[in-house]
């Protein structure tokens, strides 16, 4: 399968990429890892007239803690996150999610920025970013704009990015002592998109009560779903109270809006929202209790 012809640009700076995006508008598509874009172009689901390849823009690939955030450059490939000792040790939710995206060979190409910008309801990182309360840093003709994850994911394949904007960085609040997270994903077979998945991030206070809770779901609606109601129920409550955790899982069940498809019937996915959220909460709490910072 061969994509439709296109004009190809490989800018060597962000400024140049933004200029090209402005110039070609809707005709242009940005290319990152290509692991969603290229298959879609081959199937001719999309036929962009212009491709702007970000792979040769320097300075977009990094993982570092700075200024209260874990900062990840948009072009950082999954394998870099997976192999990062810093992420493995301090950001288990991110590590667990990235290590379950697609398969190891796809993970050598796919990027963190591409995952959140593609915003497929089955992409794993949107829910992770919602659970962390992360921020997306976009740059465009009018400079930089910081967008909270809750505003960023608008719908299937839709983000808050405006025409001419490029995602530059993702900022995850820096891991505090007694924080922990987990990503529980159910797949039909190795390397597949999720049937359902739940992302949980928590911070506990000195008496083991929930000080922060982020819960979000993958593949369970038109876009990643943040389960605010469940977060509210848990805040301030003891993390040893199993009935609160069950209550939160029940609220995930209610928040899910799955549809029946080849990955399973609607009722089953809804049940999985509950089961996975409960297990992710228990795992996140266990991790938070032993994380000293």
């Amino acid at each position: 399968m061969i994509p439709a012809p296109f004009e190809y640009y490989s800018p060597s700076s962000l400024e140049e990429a933004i200029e090209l995006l402005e110039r070609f508008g809707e005709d242009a598509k940005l290319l990152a890892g290509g692991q969603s874009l290229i298959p879609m172009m081959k199937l001719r689901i999309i036929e962009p007239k212009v491709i702007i390849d970000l792979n040769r823009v320097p300075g977009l690939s990094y993982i570092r803690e700075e200024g209260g955030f874990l900062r990840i450059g948009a072009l950082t490939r999954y394998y870099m996150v997976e192999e990062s000792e810093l992420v493995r040790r301090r950001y288990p939710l991110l590590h667990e999610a990235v290590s379950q995206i697609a398969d190891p060979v796809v993970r050598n190409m796919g990027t963190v920025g591409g995952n959140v910008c593609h915003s497929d309801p089955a992409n794993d990182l949107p829910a992770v970013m919602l659970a962390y309360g992360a921020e997306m840093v976009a740059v465009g003709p009018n400079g930089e704009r910081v967008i909270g994850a809750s505003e960023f994911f608008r719908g299937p394949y839709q983000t808050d990015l405006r025409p001419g904007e490029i995602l530059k960085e993702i900022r995850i609040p820096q891991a505090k002592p007694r924080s922990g997270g987990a990503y529980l994903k159910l797949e039909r077979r190795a390397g597949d998109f999720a049937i359902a998945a739940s992302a949980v991030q928590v911070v506990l206070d000195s008496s083991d009560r929930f000080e922060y809770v982020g819960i979000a779901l993958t593949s369970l609606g038109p876009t990643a779903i943040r389960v605010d109601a469940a977060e509210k129920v848990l805040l301030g409550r003891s993390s040893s109270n199993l009935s609160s955790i069950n209550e939160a899982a029940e609220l995930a069940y209610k928040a899910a809006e799955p549809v029946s498809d080849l990955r399973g019937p609607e009722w089953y996915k809804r049940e999985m929202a509950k089961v996975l959220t409960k297990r992710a909460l228990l795992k996140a709490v266990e991790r938070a209790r032993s994380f000293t910072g």
Partner: protein
Amino acid sequence: MGEGRKPLRRVSITINGKRYEAEVEPRMLLVHFIREVAGLTGTHVGCDTTNCGACTVLMNGRAVKSCTVFAVMADGAEIVTVEGLESDGKLHPVQEGFVEEHGLQCGFCTPGMLMTSVWLLSRNPDPSEEEIRRYISGNLCRCTGYLNIVKAIRYAARKIREEGVSPIPRFTPEKPGRG
């Protein structure tokens, strides 16, 4: 920037130590560059939808699905394909492993499976069965049931450790790759 308007782009891609330069359409996939421009047909196209891994090659030392990379993205890159594994008539330890342990039947998945195995062994010279299965999860085999592939990779791992060789072939400019 007017340069991008040209329908063709000049790319230079090193495959198995030999440099190939060509004017290509930007939409040309790396796998087609390898098969049609370089004439190296060991790299297969299976699903063409990024699922099967038959087209796996090494790009700058990492396994990638070459049906899902544009040739222009590989401009300046070092590619290793299955043809680059054998050296001076001697099979690479992973090739030997697949022969000795019957790691193939029809052989269609084998070139990709070998390249992923080489990448795996370059990362981890002594992988457990579970690690092997995780690494090859993006490479599908419809024949073997994977058991002998796992054995073949363990065979190769042992051999590479014993001989202390580098899993990823090294090419010198004086010794160009075939093709």
